[in-house]
């Protein structure tokens, strides 16, 4: 099957019955997620480890993924952000999702870690950091709602605006991200 013609939503929707669809989804997004994590970890080995955990979590949750509010890559970003937060809260390198899926924990040598540098160079800064291109109010709204998973009411209070306005900002921001995602896929 030519998975390249399928959207992210279609790939995730097909994963249960066609496991290779998830492989295609991973291939499409792994470099971007790795780059996102590597820039925030500052440690390539940890970034690789978290990348594996992020996609394992995504695989485990793929049956619950609902196309709609957020593009799949923003959904992935939310998972990645949660894994980073767990790491910063002092949890040992998280591997719950991989254990659940029976995936071995991989170790990487120097050559593999050098490869991460190549990926970082190639990935540039445009993937999940596309958030940075949004206007500040929309970026803050999307971050609060989708990445930090705050409720609309709470996020609106923090932003000092109304819930209706925050909803509009989230909607506009996600629409722009989805449009840019479509342009780059």
């Amino acid at each position, binding site marked *: 099957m030519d*998975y390249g013609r399928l959207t992210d939503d279609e790939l995730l929707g097909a*994963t*249960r*019955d*066609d*496991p*290779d*669809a*998830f*492989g*295609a989804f*991973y*291939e499409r997004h*792994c*470099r971007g997620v*790795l780059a996102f994590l590597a820039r925030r970890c500052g440690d390539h080995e940890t970034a*690789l480890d978290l*990348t*594996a955990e992020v*996609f*394992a979590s995504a*695989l*485990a949750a793929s*049956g*619950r993924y609902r196309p709609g509010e957020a593009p799949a890559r923003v959904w992935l970003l939310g998972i990645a952000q949660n894994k980073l937060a767990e790491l910063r809260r002092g949890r040992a390198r998280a591997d*719950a999702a*991989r*254990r*659940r*899926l*029976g*995936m*071995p924990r*991989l170790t*990487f040598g120097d*050559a*593999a*870690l050098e*490869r*991460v540098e190549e*990926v970082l160079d190639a990935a540039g800064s445009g993937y999940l950091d596309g958030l940075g291109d949004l206007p500040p109010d929309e970026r803050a709204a999307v971050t609060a709602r989708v990445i930090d998973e705050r409720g609309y009411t709470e996020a609106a209070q923090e932003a000092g605006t109304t819930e209706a306005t925050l909803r509009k900002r989230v909607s506009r921001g996600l629409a722009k991200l989805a449009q840019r995602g479509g342009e780059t896929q």
Partner: protein
Amino acid sequence: MNRSDFARQDDPLAAIGASLTAAAHRRSAHLRRRRHGLFAAVATTATLAVAGGAFAVTGTSTGVPALDRAIGNYAADDPWEGHEGPGGPRVPVDRRPYGGLSPTIDIPLPDGQRVAAAAYETRDGMICSTIVDPKDTTANPRGGFGCTNIRILKKWLQGDGPAHIQGGGGSPVSPERWGIHGGIARGDVVGVTVGVEGGPPIDAVVSGAWQPPSWNGTPLRVFFAVLPSPPRGAIRAERDFHRWFPTVRSARLADGTVIETPTR
């Protein structure tokens, strides 16, 4: 994706991708087996229910239809699997079983009535226990739930004591007379007594050992104790509530050791 799409074997992303794709294949096969297994389980339990109400336990069903409905244990192709909403199941999707159902327990009440109970790991990382009236044929059986985050449960069982009450106090059968309190114990615990302040120790019904998928320690057991409900009007202040909420008094281990546990 063909696994050969990753051109370089020394590419760490290729290694992760191959591992993920293999896991996706295992998961897909598991879901197919689970789907077929549930069809078989439903047929089996329906037959047994007609024959006399015995509990048939399989790896994917509690063996009690009311209990399966109460905890949202749906077949993969059930219309309510993955969905919730008006007219549908009360239990949220994330609070449904991920796997690791405990053995189902048949708990006799002092007046001859019975309730069914089981524990399970949820999709959002909790260990929950539930009791229902096995005769309940409604779409949404009334159940009592107690849930504890796995990380907190580990802390309890590793640091505080081998058995802990998780929740409860009600009963789907004659709740005005009985309160059923559920808890989780380490796998090496074979007997538990609980009691309220000033009351005698009551033996709990303890399940066989089971292993939730995300639990990496020893296996777990779930236990339930039936205590008389507080008399009407007995709870007037918070102090009364604590007095009538039971605590674990002792845990008996498989090697015969009895541990007087701290209260919780």
